[in-house]
């Protein structure tokens, strides 16, 4: 069985993360309920005429995947596996509002064509002429992890050598508005470094794309090894620690062998207890890192956490703004990622230094 390595990455988020030579050196702070992604210069990657037709999610996905392949020094890959929780909401909203406003008349196909969930995966394939396996997972906060697991299975079984995976979600005005109405988004503006202590319901909503080249061979650009990933549709607080213990044990690990934990807390007072159980429990003496105060929350933002964990392992540095506690160790070898959204769709991921 082959191993799985992260050989390239590209991340577009509410922070300036698209430059792989930097690592959160300048943090952008917000005081809002919805925070957009910081745009790279899209026309450096996509011809202007094509870029104008693309919604932000497609552009972010195309550029992030481009950056990841550049870093891995690849022109194309064997397969493309995308995760997106909400899909192409901008074009869906555009088509649907016009449909309703004009009573099903005067519609044009462009926004319908670009509204399907596999638009990003399809556009990336089209751009690099990749005729290989192409899947899109659309299951809320485990969309990215589903793509990761699928890629891992194919790489360890030597079905493919290089697979592009990624998570992408974009902000849609109507979608954001109605999710605000049901309390999924915070009502009050929340300052970046106050997100976790906000003591309010909902999250700060955002958008972004993180893509990675996963390969069965290690190379100069390798960030880390992906050891394991597992997802759970439900998980009770009572079973969280025991489920995590069995997951670690299955991969020859236990809590004491984890050097650092990357947590998906988003400051939603109704659901952050899951993270607090680990922070105050088994991982209280471990180095703890969080990121959603910087990235905001969206269905595939755990791919930002995956980028953060991989980058920490590669650079052996922990950005000060991501530290949740004061614990520090000299050598970070094994990282655990934990994420859930609104108490459902939990995931554990283990990354290891190469």
């Amino acid at each position, binding site marked *: 069985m082959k191993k799985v390595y992260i050989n390239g990455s590209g991340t577009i988020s509410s922070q300036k993360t698209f430059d792989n030579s930097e690592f959160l050196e300048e943090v952008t702070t917000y005081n809002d309920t919805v925070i957009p992604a910081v745009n790279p210069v899209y026309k450096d990657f996509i011809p202007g005429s094509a870029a104008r037709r693309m919604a932000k999610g497609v552009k972010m996905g195309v550029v992030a995947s481009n950056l990841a392949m550049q870093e891995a020094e690849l022109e194309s890959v064997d397969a493309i596996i995308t995760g997106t929780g909400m899909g192409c909401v901008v074009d869906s909203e555009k088509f649907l509002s016009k449909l309703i406003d004009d009573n099903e008349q005067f519609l044009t196909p462009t926004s319908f064509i670009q509204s399907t969930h596999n638009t990003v995966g399809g556009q990336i394939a089209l751009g690099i002429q990749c*005729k290989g*396996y*192409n899947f899109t997972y659309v299951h809320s906060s485990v969309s990215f992890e589903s793509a990761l697991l699928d890629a891992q*299975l194919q790489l360890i079984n030597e079905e493919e050598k290089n697979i592009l995976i990624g998570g992408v979600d974009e902000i849609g005005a109507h979608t954001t508005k109605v999710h605000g*109405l049901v309390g999924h988004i915070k009502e009050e503006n929340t300052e970046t470094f106050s997100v976790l202590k906000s003591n309010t319901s909902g999250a700060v909503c955002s958008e972004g794309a993180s893509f990675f080249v996963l390969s069965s061979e290690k190379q100069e650009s390798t960030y880390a090894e992906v050891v394991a990933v597992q997802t759970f549709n439900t998980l009770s607080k009572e079973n969280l620690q025991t489920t995590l213990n069995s997951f670690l044990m299955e991969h020859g690990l236990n809590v004491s062998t984890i050097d650092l934990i990357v947590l998906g807390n988003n400051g939603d007072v109704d659901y952050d207890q899951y993270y607090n159980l680990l922070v105050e429990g088994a991982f209280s003496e471990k180095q703890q890192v969080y990121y959603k105060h910087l990235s905001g929350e969206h269905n595939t933002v755990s791919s930002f956490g995956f980028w953060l964990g991989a980058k920490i392992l590669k650079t052996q540095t922990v950005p000060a703004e991501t530290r949740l506690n004061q614990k520090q160790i000299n050598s970070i070898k094994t990282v655990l990622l934990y994420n859930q959204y609104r108490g459902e769709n939990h995931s554990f991921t283990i990354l290891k230094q190469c």
Partner: protein
Amino acid sequence: MGKGVAITGMGIISAIGNNVEENYNSLISSNKGISRISKIDTIHKDDIMVGEISFTNKELEKLLGLSSDNNYSRTALLGLVAAKEAVKEAGILDISEYKTGLISATSVGGMDMTEKFYYDYIESNTNRKYIEGHHAGDSTQKIAEELGIKESLVTTISTACSSAANAIMYGARLIKAGKLDRVVVGGADCLSKFTINGFKTLMILSDTYNTPFDENRKGLNLGEAAAFLVLESDALVAKENKKVLAYVKGYGNANDAYHQTASSENGDGATLAMEKALKVANLQAEDIDYINAHGTATGNNDLSEGRAILRVFKENVPDFSSTKPYTGHTLAAAGGIEAVYSILALQRNIIFPNLNFKTPMKEFAIIPQTELKKKELNTILSNSLGFGGNCSTVIFSKG
């Protein structure tokens, strides 16, 4: 890969029946489920025909015993009906006894409710319970809960019209890798104004009965449906002495990388998908007894798919037919529906006819099977091709 991954249960609801038996009876009596649309008030109602399921949402809720404050989209309602039948037929009494997952597929998700209450959500709080039901994973999450699948692998695939075929493929992969002992796989999609108008703008909706592989085909009929299979590991089948309906013998997915919606003229993606599936199954083209084609009856699909079939099978194209004239094109569910039909064909040694066919296409000489045909069937290949260049093939066999 030996026998392949065992299928121990199946369930379906479509325009030609509310369960497996009803679907089979319609298939053998050439009973089409295509009609004018009755449940959606669209200005196109006199210009299109659809494969609509006769139950109303209220009737489905009652059938499923859901409380009145439920927030099920029609996709979730249809999905649950089919998934429950599949699990029942597999003889599963305690689903948590073995590591069981769920992989579903959908393209519209909860769009039927979103389009109904789009502005209403902002003005009043009466229907806001459906907001959470919009995203594609919601119906899957609900089906898992109702089936009793907890703390397990549950996910959703959305690759347009190949979605359910991909769910079957991924489920088989998970069983082979030992990640799960058992997995429920399939897909669900309901009719919506969104998809009706989307396909209308692409000008590929027929105003009459769809006629796959016919020279004068005018486009597709949209349909709504759900279908699920239960896949189980060899160890579990042996231990529980399970009756196996058929096996998932091979699978392949490839991308056309040609156009966001249209298929390439020579069917590159479909050719690759069929070749990959044959390789995984360790079979040759001549081992295929029947092809359940995607055959949507659009000008583009049937030409591209037909050419791909010719590229793979050359001068020995086996019997093939599209069952879309019965059900319409059920989008993300299609690969699941046609998996059930392929298994029925294997079980009963019968090929279901490609209805409505009259005139051969001028581009090639292959002609679909147009009459019900009794024939010993051991291996069936099923195609599902979709937007985004997504092409999938699944091979089913008796053993």
